[in-house]
């Protein structure tokens, strides 16, 4: 590392790397963090569309209480031919779609979605030339491809894809149609995605610890870098636990062990505990990087500096620590001791405090600014609105007596979609609109972006608020048919879905169109550094292979030192 740092300050006269390939081979063999970031990005938007298509199949099916089944049952009763339909021909397929929608959105869209921006932006933000382990970085990305291929190809093996939900609770995932190879392929896919995740986490931790530019002390780190650091710690500590959980499944399924098999003395609840020990921290993996990024975006477009830097960083840290201590709030109905339930309730409620601090700090950052409502800023504001609603649902769910009624209902589905789509995905959009000029040297369309934002914002609100209503009234999750009572709210959800998928399609098209727009010639198209001192805007758009010719000549303000001075 010492050699690397020694380079800084010495002006470069020539590109330090020899380009061995061009075109496709360049992208296949690249170890440049920027290109890998873009590979992640394109992988993620593609996966997002596929996952969205799965959601579409589910939503169209759920638009009416049981339209498809009516036809099928009528046919059985009257002895006429069964009309062809995916889910009626094969009810199992519905569960496969539910499982794959969740798996793709979590493991292949949102988690790598943030890694895409972390990969591209974090080395720039700390003034580094690349990640600490460039080849490992590339390896981490390329692991996702076989992982995704395993998931998709499992639809074509005997018995179909995994259908026991993304939670894969045993004994369901051990028996019957779930004992087919699809579930094993799902396990291996999750393993590969997990390894990719761990490699990325190690890389970020080492990079941030060692490759900061001279003078970039911990107290001067941009908040996005802090968020990356904390998220990487979560990934490093939690992902092996997921690997342990699915390995238990794998062993029970194939090698006759009995971790989770009740007949042989195992315990299905053991799996649930181990699984949620990963999967609760995982929800913070899916939101904390966005928490970091939105601080940059809001400050940039408000012409201000981030309000309360220290409390922002400590809040992320607090969420990281608390995130590991609340997993069993997913399991309030499995029959835990009441004292434990009380503990997990209090701990879960406590997470609301640092999250609230962050929300108020973002608002205070905007307060008194001169706000430019670019599309990125609109997405940031849309995030604030929707995330607060989603978080409110979280407070309601944390209360055990209420949760016992709402657990595993559509209220939960509405809650986590409100924070994952209204939160994480809105943040991914905001980051894309904010950093796309830096990443490619082209603007995304502000005009089309307005459509993307409003369709997305209204669609997400309608779809997922309606889900809250369904669940509150008593609709369970993961069902292909439902009581006629929930007709209206489900229709609304399907309507909202169509708004969001139109927005996503417009965005996808605009990504391609953006490359035909004129190249950006300035380093700092959003004029961020008029007020802030952010390294990524101190180099060209897109940055050269070596990022910086020399250490950016911007004094890095010690954010911590500013804490405690009231203007």
């Amino acid at each position, binding site marked *: 590392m010492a050699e690397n740092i020694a380079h800084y300050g010495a002006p470069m006269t020539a590109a330090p790397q020899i380009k061995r390939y061009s075109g496709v081979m360049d992208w296949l063999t690249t170890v440049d963090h920027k290109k890998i970031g873009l590979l992640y990005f394109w992988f993620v938007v593609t996966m997002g569309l596929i996952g969205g298509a799965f959601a579409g199949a589910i939503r169209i099916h759920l638009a009416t*209480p049981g339209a498809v*089944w*009516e036809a099928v*049952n009528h046919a059985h*009763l009257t002895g006429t031919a069964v009309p062809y339909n995916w889910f009626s021909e094969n009810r199992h397929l*519905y*569960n496969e779609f*539910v499982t794959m929608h969740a798996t793709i959105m979590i493991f292949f869209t949102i988690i790598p979605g943030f890694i895409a921006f972390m990969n591209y932006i974090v080395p720039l933000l700390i003034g580094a030339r690349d990640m600490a382990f460039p080849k490992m970085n590339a390896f981490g990305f390329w692991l996702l491809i076989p992982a995704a291929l395993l998931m998709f190809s499992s639809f074509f093996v005997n018995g179909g894809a995994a259908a026991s939900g993304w*939670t894969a609770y045993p*004994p*369901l995932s051990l*028996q*019957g*149609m*779930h004992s087919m190879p699809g579930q094993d392929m799902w396990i291996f896919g999750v393993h590969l995605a997990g390894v990719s995740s761990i490699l990325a986490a190690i890389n970020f931790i080492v990079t941030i610890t060692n490759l900061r530019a001279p003078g970039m002390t911990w107290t001067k780190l941009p908040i996005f870098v802090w968020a990356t650091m904390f998220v990487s710690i979560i990934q490093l500590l939690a992902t092996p636990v997921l690997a342990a959980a699915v390995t238990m499944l794998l062993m029970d399924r194939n090698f006759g062990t009995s971790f989770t098999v009740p*007949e042989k003395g195992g*315990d*299905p609840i053991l799996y649930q505990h181990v699984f949620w020990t990963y999967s609760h921290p995982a929800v913070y993996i899916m939101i904390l990087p966005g928490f970091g990024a939105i601080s940059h975006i809001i400050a940039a477009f*408000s012409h*201000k*500096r981030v*309000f*309360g830097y220290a409390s922002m960083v400590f809040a992320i840290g607090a969420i990281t620590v608390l995130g590991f201590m609340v997993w069993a709030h997913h399991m309030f*109905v*499995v*029959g835990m001791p*009441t004292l434990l*339930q009380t503990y997990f*309730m*209090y701990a879960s409620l406590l997470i*609301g405090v640092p999250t*609230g601090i962050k929300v*108020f700090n973002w*608002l205070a950052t*905007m307060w*008194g600014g*001169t*706000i*430019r*409502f670019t599309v990125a800023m609109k997405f940031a504001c849309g995030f*604030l609105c929707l995330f*607060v609603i989603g978080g*409110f649902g979280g*407070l*309601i769910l944390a*209360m055990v*007596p*209420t949760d016992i*009624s709402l657990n*595993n209902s559509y209220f939960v589905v509405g809650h986590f979609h409100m924070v994952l789509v209204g939160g994480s995905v809105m943040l991914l959009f905001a980051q894309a609109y904010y950093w796309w000029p830096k990443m490619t040297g082209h603007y995304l369309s502000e005009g089309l972006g307005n459509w993307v934002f409003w369709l997305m914002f209204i669609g997400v609100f309608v779809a997922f608020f309606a889900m809250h209503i369904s669940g509150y009234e*008593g*609709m*369970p999750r993961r069902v292909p*048919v439902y*009581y*006629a*009572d929930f007709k209206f709210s489900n229709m609304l959800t399907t309507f909202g879905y169509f708004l969001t998928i139109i927005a996503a399609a417009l965005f996808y098209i605009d990504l391609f169109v953006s490359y035909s727009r004129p190249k950006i010639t300035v380093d700092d198209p959003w004029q961020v550094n008029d007020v802030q001192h952010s390294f990524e805007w101190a180099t060209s758009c897109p940055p050269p292979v070596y990022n910086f010719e020399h250490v950016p000549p911007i004094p890095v303000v010690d954010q911590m030192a500013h*804490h405690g001075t*009231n*203007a």
Partner: protein
Amino acid sequence: MVRTFFILLALIVGTRSAMAVDIPADASPQAYAEKFNPDIFALNDDGSPKFPMIHAFGADAASDIAHDVSQNNTFNLLVFLPFLIAPQVLLLIVIFKFRDRGDGRKPATFMTNHKLETIWTLVPCLALIVVAVPVVRVLYNMELSPQSVDTNDTSQATVIKVTGHQFWWEYEYKGETAIDFGHDIVANQEPCMLVLGRPAVFTFTSGDVTHAWWVPAFAIKKSAIRGRGTNAWFTPTRLGVYKGSCAELCGEGHGIMFISAMIVTPSDYELWKTMARHRADTDEVWGLLQPLDGSDPAPDDKLHAAVDKYFATDQSPGRRFALRYWIATNYQALHRCPSYPGRKDELDAHEAERKAKIESLVAALKTSGPPVARQ
């Protein structure tokens, strides 16, 4: 023709000779079949559900803990609501007040404000303390096993072991070993029968994968896990029919693993128990009348023999009523639209089909004279 007689025996409204005290004089098997085996998917003429889903947080929820939970939830909502509204209001203010209008206004430069930060750290903490106390009382009340009732005394408590199966629920009532409801849910929505004001004490377990028993009106949801027993209890507070569902993904039939639960008066419960005790014995007669494989009903002499066998040991009015009740119930379940919420026109079609069948049987009886009394 004997076959026809027995079907009519079950279906025709009318009084028979001497009934025991536990069966009302004007009891009609068909009416009771509809009463004790309600079609939870039935729709009214306007398309609204005949038995609306009653959620845990409404005033018409049907258990004592549902009222507690509902009250507690309202309280929590009131405490939390400011934290939903304040950020949204502030966001609107910020959006409209501080947008860049190009008038040369300089942005503020403050980066911190200790007073404000302390306020928005401590105030949420205070709110959490406010909600943290009352919720514990509700929680412990829900979760601790009942102290005030003797669960060994079936007149004090309805003790039910609920076993989840793919994809139906099995209810075993303590002290009622003869009640056996092992039936495919599509064929028969066997309700969980509870008594008004009598604590219902549940133990949940599973015969295969993990399920979860959830009736929103009772504010009860518990996982049914193989190899484990989970417990819940509440006191039913309102007569009626309550719908529920399985709330844990349990395979391809998870979506049709519905629950119907009924809260009835003690006298109705006794009547239903009387009939339920004979349930298993009636199955043989029913199986001959309506073979599961869809083939033609068995010849009359076989039916004869089955009915003789049914009445061989016990010819009490209760047992006679039970045969008619279960045949009526099975007919109803058979001709009811299977367990999914259907479109109105299809439900009507099935209803019409069922009525036509009954009417043709009645017509057949009239041409062949009165049934021979079998005692």
